């Protein structure tokens, strides 16, 4: 494979930025945000340069590697710190640095009143570096470093305002639930090393043909656990809603566009594992389908604009996971949806941030309304993202989501019909809840108090939103024109070549549009044409109540894990004190007690001592006599 010594700069630039800003401290307050933005942008420039290099090479020479140094080498366990830039990772590199830079720019203005802005930018740069390491590592262990690195950055950023106890708790929850996923990654690496003798992508790919299906299924399931944790998929989805405690640019970058899609990256990157493990692949499909419905349902019931977007992210990633589970036919579409989603969801999150910026950080949509007049640019950019996510042609989401639904139908048999209809139903619900957001925020009558003064955000904030909106409009068309992305990624996957069509593409598109129309119409009837309560109505169906409580995810986690865990902890604390240490102290007490008893023999009377000595001596002589007989 071709060696290229420039890859490391992608990671090094933001990493240096983050270290500088953290180590210099207050000295960098004045220019820290500019440095961080510049470094992120230069990383993007390096990415573009790498892309142009890559385009100039033959298909088989496109992937490039760079060995940095020998990282861990013990016996046959030999892992280099080395990077791999191929057709898949370059997509991510550009997404991460591109959207990342836009969000840096946005944050300059958004965070301008926060006295810790420098620290915020340090974390952002740290995140960019870790995320790039995640997608550039050439082995599962290198990926692991980035994998936990983004977890750390996410923890720091969710808890950026950790002086509020609730936010600190949210960040802790995110880290711990991510760690459960990380455990899955550990398992995968351990199994891969124990049974295949290697942990690099290329090595595992090579060995995958020889390994038993059971082994590959084990690795696949372990990888799925990892993906589920990082991408907030069922059943480890509970942290994402709480993660909205972080500043809004963070939600846009980490919890919408990049980090949460790492699970999709992992599954697509490990395509050779899942190809060899149909059971694991089926599990991927099930997880994807459940989550896309789960997120969509939760999204319909939330009044907090960021939580709706978070639920929507969960649901959209469900689509991606579903696509990734469909095998070679779906990988390219999963990645395409990931890229288009990066644009429109980041744009919408920034839009939500812009709304909050103009509304004194109010997040309850029931207190919005009629903001179209006051924030025209935000309305337009958000609106374009909205059209993209619900999948109206020719906006980006139409191309990517439609393809996933179509591929799901074509998966064959009952499976195909079930998955396809789930995805189709999800599309309708998506249209419903996103229309609801649009109406409640922008077009319904105003419901805010007189002391609110909504205003449009400054150019530093709306410019990135505008760029992302352009992406939401065009990216789908550009990526799917002549199947550009599919052909670009094709060399990485092994095509089976079996194509069956259950439904013609045009039928699927038609059905999807019909479902979307139903969703939009019902939202318009419910919210635009009738009055909206300022307070969420109490008398609602049980189902709505469940949906508002995130389908009881926290209650279930609490009942199944937290309470028993706390019970075990307090029981063990007591056991340690009373039983284990008690046994030790018991021995001490026995020694002291027997000493106290023996002490009573010491009367202080010389004559009794003498008598004892005499008795002892006689007994001893007698004993000797007996023994020597």
């Amino acid at each position, binding site marked *: 494979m071709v060696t290229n010594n420039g890859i490391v700069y992608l990671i090094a630039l933001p990493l240096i930025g983050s270290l500088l800003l953290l180590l210099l401290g207050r000295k960098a307050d004045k220019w820290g945000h500019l440095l961080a933005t510049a470094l992120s942008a230069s990383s993007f420039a390096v990415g573009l340069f790498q892309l142009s290099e890559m385009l100039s090479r033959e298909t088989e020479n496109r992937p490039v590697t760079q060995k940095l140094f020998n990282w861990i080498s013990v016996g046959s366990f030999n892992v280099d710190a080395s990077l791999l830039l191929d057709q898949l990772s370059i997509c991510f590199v550009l997404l991460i640095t591109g959207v990342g830079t836009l969000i840096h720019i946005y944050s300059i203005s958004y965070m301008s009143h926060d006295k810790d802005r420098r620290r915020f930018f340090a974390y952002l740069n740290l995140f960019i570096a870790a995320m790039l390491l995640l997608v550039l590592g050439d082995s599962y262990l290198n990926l692991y470093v980035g994998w936990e690195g983004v977890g750390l950055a996410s923890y720091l950023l969710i808890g950026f305002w950790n002086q509020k106890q609730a936010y600190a708790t949210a960040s802790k929850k995110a880290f711990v639930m991510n760690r459960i996923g990380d455990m899955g990654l550990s398992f995968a690496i351990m199994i891969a090393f124990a049974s295949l003798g290697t942990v690099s992508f290329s090595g595992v790919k090579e060995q995958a043909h020889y390994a038993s299906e059971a082994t590959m299924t084990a690795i696949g399931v372990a990888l799925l656990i990892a993906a589920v944790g990082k991408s907030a998929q069922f059943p480890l989805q509970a942290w994402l809603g709480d993660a909205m405690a972080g500043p809004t640019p963070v939600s846009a970058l980490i919890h919408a566009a990049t980090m949460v899609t790492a699970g999709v990256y992992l599954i697509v990157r490990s395509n050779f594992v899942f190809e060899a493990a149909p059971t694991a692949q089926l599990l991927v499909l099930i997880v994807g389908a459940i989550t896309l419905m789960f997120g969509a349902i939760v999204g319909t019931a939330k009044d907090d604009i960021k939580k709706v977007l978070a639920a929507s992210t969960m649901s959209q990633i469900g689509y991606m996971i579903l696509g990734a589970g469909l095998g070679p036919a779906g990988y390219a579409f999963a990645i395409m949806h990931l890229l288009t989603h990066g644009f429109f969801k980041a744009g919408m999150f920034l839009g939500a941030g812009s709304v909050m910026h103009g509304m004194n950080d109010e997040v309850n949509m029931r207190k919005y309304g009629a903001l179209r007049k006051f924030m025209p640019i935000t309305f337009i950019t958000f609106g374009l993202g909205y059209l993209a996510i619900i999948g109206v042609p020719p906006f980006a989401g139409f191309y990517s989501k439609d393809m996933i639904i179509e591929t799901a139908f074509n998966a064959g048999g009952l499976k195909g019909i079930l998955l396809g209809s789930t995805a189709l139903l999800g599309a309708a619900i998506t249209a419903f809840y996103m229309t609801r957001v649009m109406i409640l925020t922008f077009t319904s009558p105003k419901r805010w108090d007189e002391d609110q003064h909504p205003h449009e955000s400054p150019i530093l904030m709306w410019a990135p939103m505008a760029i992302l909106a352009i992406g939401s409009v065009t990216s789908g068309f550009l990526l799917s024109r002549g199947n550009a992305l599919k052909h670009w990624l094709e060399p990485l996957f092994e095509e089976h070549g079996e194509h069956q069509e259950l439904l013609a593409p045009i039928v699927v598109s038609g059905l999807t549009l019909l479902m979307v129309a139903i969703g939009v119409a019902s939202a318009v009837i419910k919210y635009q044409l009738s009055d909206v309560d300022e307070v969420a109505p109490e008398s609602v169906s049980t189902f709505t109540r469940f949906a508002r409580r995130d389908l009881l995810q926290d209650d279930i986690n609490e009942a199944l894990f937290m309470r028993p865990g706390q019970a075990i902890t307090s029981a063990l604390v007591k056991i340690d004190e009373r039983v284990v240490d008690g046994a030790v102290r018991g021995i001490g007490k026995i020694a002291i007690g027997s000493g106290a008893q023996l002490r009573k023999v010491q*009367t*202080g*009377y*010389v*004559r009794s001592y*003498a*008598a004892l000595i*005499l008795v002892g001596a006689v007994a001893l002589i007698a004993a000797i006599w007996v023994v020597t007989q």
Partner: protein
Amino acid sequence: MSLDNYLYLSAILFTIGAVGVVVRRNAIVVFMCVELMLNAANLTLVTFSRINGTLDGQVVAFFTMVVAACEVVVGLAIIVTIYRSRRSASIDDANLLKR
């Protein structure tokens, strides 16, 4: 006369001494009983020396006498001191070590 009789005598003397140490309270009497036991031991040593026809036992007997003399010096001094301070030579009164 068999030399065994000397051994019986010394055993009797030793027993008398031991019983005296255990039952008597007066420190002086106890002290004398200790001397009695020592001399009983001496008698045994000398007797065995005679039986075996070596001088070892007699040599040890001399040692014992020296030790006994030292003991008398130190012991009597202690008894006299205790009597002076406590106005009593009863060893049951002198149980200071108990506490």
